[in-house]
């Protein structure tokens, strides 16, 4: 329950932040990688660095991550199928995998695991749709829902929390 409340809090704060819808959507698209793919992998360190360095919404990324985690769990069988197809059932790609497998650092990314590869490929495919959907959604939210929500006591309580203050330090410029 507490997790759900925190998720709700984060959702509200993120959507009403001062970042542009594009920044929030880009953050969500990047953050989705952390949730869709198995977390403890080298590529996620790169994704995390990108979230921090590029001028995208950090809370947006966290929101994308949080929303993508259950999706990632649910779609693991599908990722396995996709990864299997790319890794094991497409002979044309075998030379590429063989080369990568014998190159320093590349094997540390666990690309040779069907779930890792399948989820990464799926994220690459889904990143743009997530971005555009997010941008459209945030825009609609701010135009229609936010003005009414801002008047509510719940919203004011949430924005007054310490978490919100912490977030303000990392909000997009």
């Amino acid at each position, binding site marked *: 329950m507490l997790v759900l409340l925190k998720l709700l809090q984060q959702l509200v704060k993120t959507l009403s932040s001062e970042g542009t819808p594009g920044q929030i959507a880009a953050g969500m698209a990047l953050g989705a990688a952390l949730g869709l793919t198995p977390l403890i992998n080298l590529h996620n360190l790169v994704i995390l660095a990108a979230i921090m360095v590029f001028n995208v919404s950090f809370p947006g990324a966290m929101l994308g991550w949080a929303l993508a985690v259950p999706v990632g769990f649910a779609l*693991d069988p599908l990722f*396995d199928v996709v*990864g299997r197809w790319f890794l094991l059932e497409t002979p044309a790609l075998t030379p590429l*995998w063989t*080369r990568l497998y*014998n190159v320093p650092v590349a*094997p540390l990314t666990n690309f040779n*695991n069907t*779930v890792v590869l399948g989820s990464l490929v799926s994220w690459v495919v889904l990143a743009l749709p997530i971005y555009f959907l997010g941008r459209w959604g945030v825009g609609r939210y701010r135009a229609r829902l936010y003005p009414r929500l801002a008047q509510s006591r719940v919203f004011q309580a949430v924005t007054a929390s310490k978490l919100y203050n912490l977030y303000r330090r990392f909000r997009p*410029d």
Partner: protein
Amino acid sequence: MRAVRWKAVIPLGATLVLVALFWWLFLDLAVERAVEYAGTEIVGARVDLASADVSLGRGAVVLRGLEVTNPDRAMTNLMQADQIVAQVRVLPLLEKKVVIDTMAVRGVRFGTPRRTSGAIARQSPTTGRVGRAVADWANRIRIPPLNLQGLTTVVDVSRINPDSLRTTTQARAIAHQGDSLQGLWRAELARLDPQPQIDSARALIARLRQADVRALGLIGARDLVNSSRASATQLGQAVDRVKAVETRVKTGVAGLRSQVDGLAQARQADYAYARGLVNLPSLDAPDLSPALFGEMAVERLKPMLYWLNLAEQYLPPGLEARRQRGPDRVRASGTTARFPRVRELPAFLLVYAGADAEVGGEGAAAGRYAATITGLTTAPALYGRPTRFAAQRAAAVAGPRTGNMVAILNHVSAPITDSIVAALDGVALPTVGLAAAGATLALGSGAVRVWLARAGDNVEGSMAWSSNNVRWAPSDSAGPSDRRTAEPSIGSAQWVEDLLWRTVSRLTSVEVEVRLAGRVTAPAIGVRSNVGREVAQALRREIGDEVSRQEQRLRAEVDRRVEQQVQDAERRVAEVQMQVEAAVTAKRTELEAVKTELENQIRELTRRLPVRIP
């Protein structure tokens, strides 16, 4: 709006430093867990490590307190090592490859007891599959019981079910097949139906006989000759078709005859089956040895087959992509593939390992041992040389000094070839329970000889134990003779125990040899032992005549129950041979005769013509 958030570079750097620091702090723990995880996955039982000390800069790894559980005995360690010092190449680690140039193992001990159970709830798919296959094989091995009770009682022949006899089943199958083939061939002959052709040819022969060349004229005579020649050709084709049927019939009949001959072999199997059904023992030594030592043989062979099959799984030949289950994690494991490439390093390679082991005490096995392993790798095709294990006794405290073992696993290319040769003296041999004799046999210390050769899927080998200082002991405190209250009647349980005890307790030396041959997943085994021979001779002396009489009765009963079916089968085959084969042969003979006659008449007519017809 700027694309890059420069003020985040420092937090990012700090994060990366934190990650690196975390990794460095927990590297030892990570290596410890990795060794335990990988070892457990491979062995199929728990592998514990007390600590790991990794110095990446020097490429040195020190493992302490390694305990490898015996997969067959959860409370016993297969091997325990106090310290393992490995020199690891650092650069291949970036490719997630572990290449160990040298490894020194100190303080090795075998068969030490464990404080906690080393059993695991779930074996890895590979290990589990191999373990199950070996267990299935062991369960399928049928060890004949040494049950001599009821020898002199009347054999209950009514227990022999005719439907369970192989001869009956095969004889019925032959008869059924004979019926089917007979119908098939008759139909085939009916389809050919050469009778109209024969009748037509006979009419033509009559016409040729009565033909008047002058009345026919040259053209009429030529037409008659040509049409007669066409008929002769058609007759020749009909002869060929009938001959083909005749060949098939003869082959089929020969096959049926051969099956009838095979009934004698089936009957021998039925005799053995019936003997097992009524507990009538064979008095041949090879049959008694499996009953006495079969279980021990299977128990000793199980680990050997387990490791042999496991080696095939983890040291596969060739350079194809290898698949294995992905790592255990909260998310799905998936499948992890490895893509070995020529002239690259394998995922795991142990170039050289040396181990010193010391067995303490004053026993025959006490002394120092030295072992080496070279070229142990997950991709033998990349390393290009076979894996070699060698161990020898360097110094013995007591007993003979000999003791060595060499195993060569050549998995460089398919078919894989493995060979193991071991000769150990002064080894502590097991104690075997012989329930039928109410005794236990302590083999004491003795010699073990092992040789095993594998080529592809086939394996052949033998294990032999010999001891000159065996001790026999009754299974319970009161020995068979002590328990006796009166002279036991022949064939009673007490009599059997007494006989076996009298026979085996005199033996001071025992030799047991187990041979195996066949597919490596399920080889057949044979057991020979001087104990089996002695028991067989004693039985032959004491009850040989009675067993022979009972066996004669048993054979007569089997004969009686299968005779009708065998006769039916023979009669059916004879009928097929007489009726179909004779009919086909007769038809072919008739066709050939008519054809010959027609050709003669054509020649006769053409001779009478004034000009030659081409």
